[in-house]
């Protein structure tokens, strides 16, 4: 194999690695969001009075939010702006500081709630704000759903 072949193969593999890396990031952040959705599902029934209050389930959901926010911010490399039907808004990369701050707020709110919630009454007074002030407002600013 001549030298320029080696260079070609090497550069191709670098390109392939980058492609794999960004695809993986998009897939992973979609998984994180699914996990957030599942956690939310486990508590919304209780909030509406459709399911009995269960403190361990609530605490587990809040722990999931905190783990997920920690992971989430690592999943937006420069090369993951498009592809894989991502719903990430280009604004994330235009204002990364703002995006990180929104993520950090969610994490802090979830952590504060995990300390504040000790019974059903504190759950009903604290939890709605965690959900209301984070899920919708973050999607409002940072997500755009495109055609499939």
């Amino acid at each position, binding site marked *: 194999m001549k030298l320029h072949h080696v260079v070609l193969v090497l550069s191709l593999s670098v390109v392939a690695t980058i492609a794999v890396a960004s695809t993986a990031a998009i897939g992973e952040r*979609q998984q994180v*969001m699914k996990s957030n*959705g*599942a956690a*939310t*599902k486990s508590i*919304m029934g209780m909030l509406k009075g459709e399911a009995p209050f269960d403190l361990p389930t609530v605490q587990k959901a809040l722990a999931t939010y905190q783990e997920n926010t920690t992971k989430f911010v690592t999943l937006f490399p420069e090369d993951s702006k498009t592809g894989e*039907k*991502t*719903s990430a*808004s*280009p604004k994330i990369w235009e204002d990364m500081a703002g995006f990180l701050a929104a993520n950090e707020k969610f994490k802090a709110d979830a952590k504060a709630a995990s300390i504040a919630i000790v019974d059903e009454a504190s759950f009903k007074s604290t939890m709605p704000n965690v*959900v*209301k002030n984070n*899920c*919708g*407002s*973050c*999607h*409002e*600013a*940072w*997500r*755009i*759903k*495109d*055609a*499939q």
Partner: protein
Amino acid sequence: MNLATRLLLVFSVFVIAAGYWLTDFDAHFAFRGDGRWKPTRAGDPANGKVLFAAGGCVSCHASSGADDRLHLGGGKPLKTPFGTFYPPNISPDPKDGIGRWTETQFIRAIRDGTAPDGRPYYPSFPYTSYRHLSPDDAIDIFTYIRTLPPVSGKPPNHDLTFPFSIRRGVGLWKLAFLDGSVIEPESNHSESWNRGRYLVDGVGHCAECHSPRNFMGAIIDEKRLSGGPNLEGKGIVPNITPDKTGLAAWSEADIANLLKDGFTPDFDSVGGSMAEVVRNTAELSDVDRMAMAIYLKSLPPIQGQMRSK
């Protein structure tokens, strides 16, 4: 001057006059003539408050950058392919808002898209939907707005691209596209269905975002509510007819619930402009949200584009 030249001259004058008349802001009255409604009773601010929420007035008219959503100073830029619109001040301020308006002027604005000085509003103000409101309901909204704090200051003028920058063209646009009258109840449908239709097609103006538009920016009627490109930028707005590309798999309770807390049946939280819409629909009653859901589920399914999960 020979005869042919004279005829041509007369003809040209006629064409110019006809063109001027057809682009008149009220030319549509000559053809439809239903714009001169008057309220039949005094305004009811409580009903006005409900309709004000259903109409999402604050979403465009809240003061740019203000924390209090009931400061209606306007000015929050709305970017579209036609240019940037700056919604006006509709607070009861006598100088910069609508404090000195009469009831008739308000009805004309909201139902006909005509300002007190006779100029037409651009259809970014969804009077094509508000047109379905009864004059009494319109006046209830007006009465409610007058209870809110006056805000001074006028937002900038719209910054539009040619030819949309010619406001006179809107007269012709209205002639072509401003149709419809007050939505009257249909006796072969339930009370909820009728209420839902009034909220969805009238004051809620759902179709204004959830429908594709033609090159002139008018909703394509046979595709109404089946979703379309997002005029504010990237992405698509979802189909909300009961097609499999839309709400086929959703129950009425699912739809009513989304309008209350913003969550889809998968516990995804709606984003984009819909997050703001949910802030408004969250203020409605459960009965009204369910009525909207019942009406939407009763619509004929229309195929639209699937969105990414």
